[in-house]
């Protein structure tokens, strides 16, 4: 197995799928000549040419709309959003078009597209550039939403997303692009809709995805030093959600923490806690504890930013709460 960064893994996934299937193409701002705003599409223009690696004007609605229209007639577009903060300018194309046409046409159409790019906080880019919008997309029937936390998952899930016939919202994370991990040498994909236990434990379940899953693993490391064995469950796909994996874990540990980078109100974590409390009520020894960003826009100062993004310490604290352990007791 090779050790790759998530950036390289994502690049491999697209390169392999584009070589395998003529109908796959990429479009977005700076994906070609610039080699990708975050270098995810590096080298693809030279290999596949401008019609399959299309530099677009700064026009998110057109980028997403072109992906939708091309997908309707049978191509497999990958629309890159420079970051998901800008995807809200294309919301109409995704919510009213990609997610709706199959239903509104009574099953005549399909929209096999991927919209991908980095989501969530980066480093000191302030309120408009640091948002976690997964709940917006996961809210919409007709969409699939994937959020990998490792290079292996990123490659396997992106390949499945490209081959799948539904519109897939594929949210990456800038902070994870340099994260290294093992990636199989052989051809593989990871079907959407299967979660993964990233660390097993018996005392508490921590549900977290994308960057927060990495934070949760760091928290689990700290907790282990106190003798608390945390199980970290990464759903990998938010829609469809591998609920069984989460429920099975909670039925084993009897305690659950849901950690995410989004705001607390009406977030995806709120949905997960609702499902866990409803389905695992008898198994729970304490209420589900949630870790979120504070309910304010992201500040610029690095001191404030650190207070904003969930850190391992906040997850540790939440686990203590779930275990009814107070600091110093």
């Amino acid at each position: 197995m090779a050790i790759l960064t998530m950036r390289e893994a994502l690049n491999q996934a697209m390169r392999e799928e584009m070589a395998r299937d003529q109908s796959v193409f990429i479009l977005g701002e700076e994906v070609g000549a610039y080699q990708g705003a975050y270098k995810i599409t590096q080298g693809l223009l030279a290999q596949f040419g401008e019609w399959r690696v299309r530099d677009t004007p700064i026009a998110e609605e057109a980028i997403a709309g072109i992906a939708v229209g091309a997908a309707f007639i049978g191509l497999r577009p990958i629309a890159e959003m420079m970051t998901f903060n800008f995807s809200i300018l294309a919301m109409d194309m995704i919510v009213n078009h990609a997610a709706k046409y199959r239903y509104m046409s009574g099953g005549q159409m399909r929209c096999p597209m991927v919209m991908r790019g980095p989501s969530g906080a980066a480093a000191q880019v302030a309120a408009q550039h640091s948002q976690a919008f997964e709940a917006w997309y996961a809210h919409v029937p007709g969409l699939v939403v994937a959020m990998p936390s490792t290079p292996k998952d990123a490659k396997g899930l992106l390949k499945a997303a490209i081959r799948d016939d539904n519109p897939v919202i594929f949210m990456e994370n800038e902070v994870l692009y340099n994260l290294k991990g093992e990636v199989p040498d052989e051809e593989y994909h990871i079907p959407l809709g299967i979660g993964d236990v990233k660390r097993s434990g018996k005392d508490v379940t921590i549900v977290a995805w994308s960057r927060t899953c990495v934070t949760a693993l760091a928290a689990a490391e700290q907790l282990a030093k106190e003798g608390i064995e945390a199980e970290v469950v990464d759903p990998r796909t938010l829609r469809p959600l591998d609920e069984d994996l989460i429920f099975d874990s909670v039925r084993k540990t009897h305690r659950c923490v849901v950690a995410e980078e989004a705001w607390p109100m009406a977030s995806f974590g709120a949905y997960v806690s609702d499902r866990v409390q409803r389905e695992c009520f008898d198994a729970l020894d304490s209420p589900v504890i949630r870790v979120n960003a504070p309910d304010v826009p992201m500040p610029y100062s690095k001191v404030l930013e650190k207070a904003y993004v969930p850190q391992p310490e906040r997850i540790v604290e939440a686990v203590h709460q779930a275990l009814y352990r107070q600091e110093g007791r």
Partner: protein
Amino acid sequence: MTREEAFRLYRQMLLIRRFEERCAQIYVEGKIGGFLHLYIGQEAVGVGAMSLLREDDYFITSYRDHGYAIARGTDPRPLMAELCGKATGISRGKGGSMHFYDVPRGNFGGDGIVGGHLPVAAGMGYGIRLRGTDQVCLCFFGDGAVNEGAFHEALNVSALWDLPVVYIIENNRYGMGTSLDRASSVKDLYQRGSAYGMPRREVNGMDLLAVRNVLGEAIDRARKEKRPTLIEAETYRYRGHSMSDPGKYRTKEEVEQMMQVDPIFLWGKRLIEQERFTTAELEAADKEVIAEVDACVRFADESPWPTHESLYEDVYVRSPYIHLKSADKDPAWKASIREDKHPDTFWRHAVKEAK
């Protein structure tokens, strides 16, 4: 155009007119619900355009979409059933008036978001270019849609990359109750094409022959030169914006004046004066289409309502790349199937690789 073709187009416009007049009637009876936007007055644009398309061409439209489907040759019975929300509807009762689709005929149908289908049309044009076929895509929308941001983004990239899309503004002078003068800084809407260096034309949308000439040239340019065109068809809707429109924003005189240039009346006159048809022949055609519309309503009346299970169908496509054990908990996934309503249509479109 042959004499027979001229008559066929007359009959088609008449069928659309009578079909929609009946829609208005049964709407009042409560058989049709929701929004009902009638195309009455604008028939020459849709009929003229459809008469020029090749079987494998595509089109996508706004919500005022009954006319295009009928002109494209879709059986009008499932269209009426769709309006009545029946299981036999073209969109299985899930779309209604604003959402007629007929993918085997290249009809990517009615969009309820003003201007929302323009970037999608650009994407269909992009897909055509990428595959290297000589298909074209027509995109129909109203005078109100040109003020949406989506119009700008779609036209810019279409001109930039030479996409084979013909954008057709059906300027009926109003977006709901707001007249063009109160909504657009430029009154000659086709001139907006100049901002993108796009070929642009205006045409009298009440004159079927003029529509055919101008559109024919644009379709040719798209097919052969892969270049888009912006067309402004000047037309008029005789009915309200939708069924709830009191029409306070325009005068009776204006409507009556525009009735003098009714596209169907004008074309009928031409058939008699220049093509040697008789009034009796035109009247017989009218009787025929009225009988056809009767049959549509009967079909809709006799059709079953959709089953409750169908509520969950058609949200997703079942796929080997989604794990069904977890997905199966979700009723929409459970009800998903691998096939489309018209199996292999999607792939017929997908695989048609000319190069």
